[in-house]
């Protein structure tokens, strides 16, 4: 897998704005947000509830379309692509960890991890998924369904799924938000460890101060806009 050059940011967000209809007018959720993330960085997007963190993450992943602005992933302009091409890009370069885990209930832990590999047509899906699950400490539980796993274990499966395809960029939305403090800390450790091992870029949304402190850089959102300190000069 090719890695981006040092000079080019892995994520470039330029003047991103997102508005949604609200009654008669428009509600601005994100307003004119711009920043770069260099390859290998660990960046936390913080802010209070409703500040637009998850909307920003969704736009960076190409899950939603902005009202204005652009996002480049590894130099590729995201919104010049159609939805299917963005899905293909996600499959190649991105990994996801969600607050609510998003494991498919009818698949076992192993099958959940295999799914993105199988979608990518990888022949070694099973072997790779097994090895990643071993790595996250679930070697004994890989044939269990999500409903038989604890919250912490489910999130570990989700992390294994996110890293199985060795993505360049890992996006995490409140990865410890559904877990108790101890489990949350273990999950955070795992996330950072795997991120280091894979040499990936980590972009996580959190309102957990401890978790954000562990990132090399923090970007704070206030009412949909970057806090003054984070605005580019």
């Amino acid at each position, binding site marked *: 897998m090719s890695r981006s050059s040092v000079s080019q940011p892995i994520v470039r967000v330029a003047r991103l704005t997102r508005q949604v209809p609200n009654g008669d007018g428009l509600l601005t959720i994100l307003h004119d947000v711009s920043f770069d993330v260099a390859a290998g960085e660990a960046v936390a997007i913080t802010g209070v509830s409703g500040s637009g963190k998850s909307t920003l993450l969704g736009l960076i992943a190409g*899950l*939603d379309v902005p009202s204005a602005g652009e996002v480049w992933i590894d130099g590729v302009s995201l919104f010049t692509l159609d939805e*299917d091409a963005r*899905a293909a890009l996600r*499959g190649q370069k991105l990994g996801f960890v969600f607050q609510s885990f*998003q494991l*498919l209930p009818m698949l076992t832990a192993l099958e959940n991890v295999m799914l993105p590999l*199988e979608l990518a*047509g990888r022949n070694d899906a099973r072997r790779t998924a097994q090895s990643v699950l071993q790595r996250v400490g679930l070697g004994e539980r890989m044939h269990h369904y999500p409903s038989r796993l604890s919250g912490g274990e489910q999130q570990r499966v989700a992390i294994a799924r996110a890293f199985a395809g060795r993505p360049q960029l890992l996006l995490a939305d409140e990865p410890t938000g559904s877990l108790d403090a101890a489990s949350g800390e273990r999950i955070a450790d795992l996330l950072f460890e795997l991120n280091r091992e894979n040499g990936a870029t980590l972009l996580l949304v959190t309102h957990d101060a401890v978790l954000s402190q562990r990132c090399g850089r923090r970007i704070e959102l206030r009412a949909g806009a970057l806090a003054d300190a984070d605005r580019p000069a």
Partner: protein
Amino acid sequence: MITTLRLASRLLWREWRAGELYLIAGALAVAVAGVTAVGFFSNRVNRALDAQAGQLLGADLALSWDRPLPAGAGRAARALGLATAGVVQFPSMALAGGHNVLAEVKAVGDGYPLRGAVQIATAAQQPGRNVRGAPRRGTVWIDSNLQARLGLTVGSTLELGDARFSVAAIITRQPDAMIRIVNLGPRLLMNRADLPATGLTGPGARARYQLLVAGNAAAVAQFRGWAGAHRQPGQRIEGTHGQRGGTQNALQRAERFLGLAALVSMAVAAMAIGLAVRRFMQRHLDAGAVMRCVGASRRRLFALYGVQLLAIGLLASAAGCVIGIAAQLALAQLAASIVKTALPAPGWLPLAQGMISGTALLLAFALPALVGAGSVPPLRVLRRDAVRPAATSVAGYALTVALIAALVLWQAGDWKLGGYVLAGFAGVAVAGAALAALTVAALARLTASGRFTAMRYGIAGIRRRGAATLMQTVALSVGIMAILLMTLVYRDLMQAWQHNLPADAPNRFLIGVQPDQVKPIEAFFNAHRLGAVTFYPMVRGRLTAINGRQVTSADYADERAQHLIDREFNLSWADAMQAGNRIVAGHWWQPGGRGGPQFSMESGIAQTLGINVGDKLTFDVAGQPVSARVTSLRDVDWDSFNVNFFVIAPPGMLDAYPASYITSFHLAAARLPALNALIQAYPNVVAIDVGAILAQVRDVMNRVTQAVSFVFLFTLVAGVFMLYAAIAGTRDERLLDAAVMRALGARRAQILRMQWLEFALLGALAGLLAAAGATVAGSWVGARLFHLAYGGSPWLWVIGVAGGALGVALAAAPAVFAVVRTPPLATLRRLG
């Protein structure tokens, strides 16, 4: 593509293992099983009946004429590899012991009959044995009627024209004996080689010459073509069509009712499939969003789900076909005894029908949902409410409706029947939705004033899930309606149908009674305690013109129509319409013949001949033209074994023409000597025993009742699937509600009460609607298929409402217990 197929099959296996597909597959298999079982049944019975019809005709095809057929006809048939036999039929006086009786004589050659067999015995009450071929020369076989009239036994001698014959056997059954009851006189079978010696077929004789042919279907069809091309005026070609004998009506009705049962089970199962597919797709919205998040394109997602559903469709349909085959084995037992012959092996057509129906049924429901799943916004992984409706959903649902309608019409094989079933289900759906909407609105007012917490929340649950409640009520109504139809309505209808043919239904016809014999014969009946009889006048007439235009059999392509034009009709007159008749178009005349000349015609024959109310018919009666307009069409219950007529006129129109009288009555076996005495006293009167046919019809009724019950089991199972699918539809919502309530301090007992109440209310509402639907459906089926007035039963309403409440509450028990058994945290984590 290969990767997608492989992945789809893996996902399918995983889904199956996780139990996600049982409901869809189960409902689909039931729909296909019902359709296939009935398809097999109809297919085999029809083929057996066609074969049997050949036995009734004594051949696969008969060419007949009122003069000797040209030798070329027989040569043409034999050149095609067909077997042939010549038959000459004529009426003649048979003399014995100073008595003479007009008998129907049939002179046959060695090959007779080419299909079936003649059954003969040494005495009328002895068991018969099947024989083929003609009586030995110098001997004849006679039927019990002729035997009784002339007082003959085996070994007696009778005279026929210039020749004397010895009676060698009594005919107990003969091909074509059941075809034309009214034209049947005492019968005699002789060897054709003896014919010249009788001197009876010289010039002026009323003989009919027949060439019977039999062989493989293609050759028979070829010969039919040859005979059509070389047809001389007056020549008639008779096939096996319309030769199914006395049980045809009952069987046709059976087939339609079985078809209807299969259709209803398919329609109910279809709704269950619709609900199950909807739930499947809803549960897979998140999976779709996750897959899109990790790189699956819309097309890929569509292909993945499409392949999975297609595979379920094919596999479940195949399973349904297997169940259908097993079920038809049981049905075949019943069918074999109906058709009194070994059934032909099942053909492959019903299997193809089953596979196509099942797969199309699933795809019909799945396509709109598939389109929706393909366009799941991946943002749903971050925001669960981010589901936008698919742009093609309206077109998608229109496609569903069109596909289902096409499927039902195809299965029904009859636009009208299919249309009624579709309209019935649409009616229940619309009425159900309207009633549920009204109830929900009414409940909204109740909620505020409700004193009991459980009641308040139970009602609030129904109200809050407005759209889901509507769908659930409709679905539950259809499920309960299927069950009510299967149990109460069906039982009542079957009882009423069988009651139509009571133990003392007529088993004898008396024909050829002269006007001056009516009173003495009535007196004879009274004197011998044979019961009261009603005599109906009968005048014979040939239909010569419709609306002033001359008609001949050549004007009609339909074999039955040609037949009707060629023969004479039995016309009658009456002031009041007979019991068992029902006007389907026009009006019956005013009493006393005040409306002037007119005709009332049987609807089936009118349809065959293309005659409508208002058409002017001209009959040739005793050389005189008699014309009048048709003012009414009647449905006639031929199964009743009462005397009925295709064409009736009001009094005053036909009275002047030479008439004979006919009646039907029930003769107890012990009274047979009295009937024989009557026949001796009135030699011109012909008594026809239809007891055997009556017994056969009764037997068909019993078997059909069993067969339909059996097919209705599929409807019952489909109904249960429907209930389950309807209940499962809101399971996740209920789990979440209960989890929140329990988190807020609600006790398990309180939640149980709320849930039970909600289901019981839903069940009662659905039961009410189902009772109404079942009453309407019962009346329709009663009127259309059985000519019975069915007004429903008070039990329908009681059982519908109470049973609905209790049944739905019970059926929901696993779902309700799951709600309180699942730890709230687990639910909140999974669904919150």
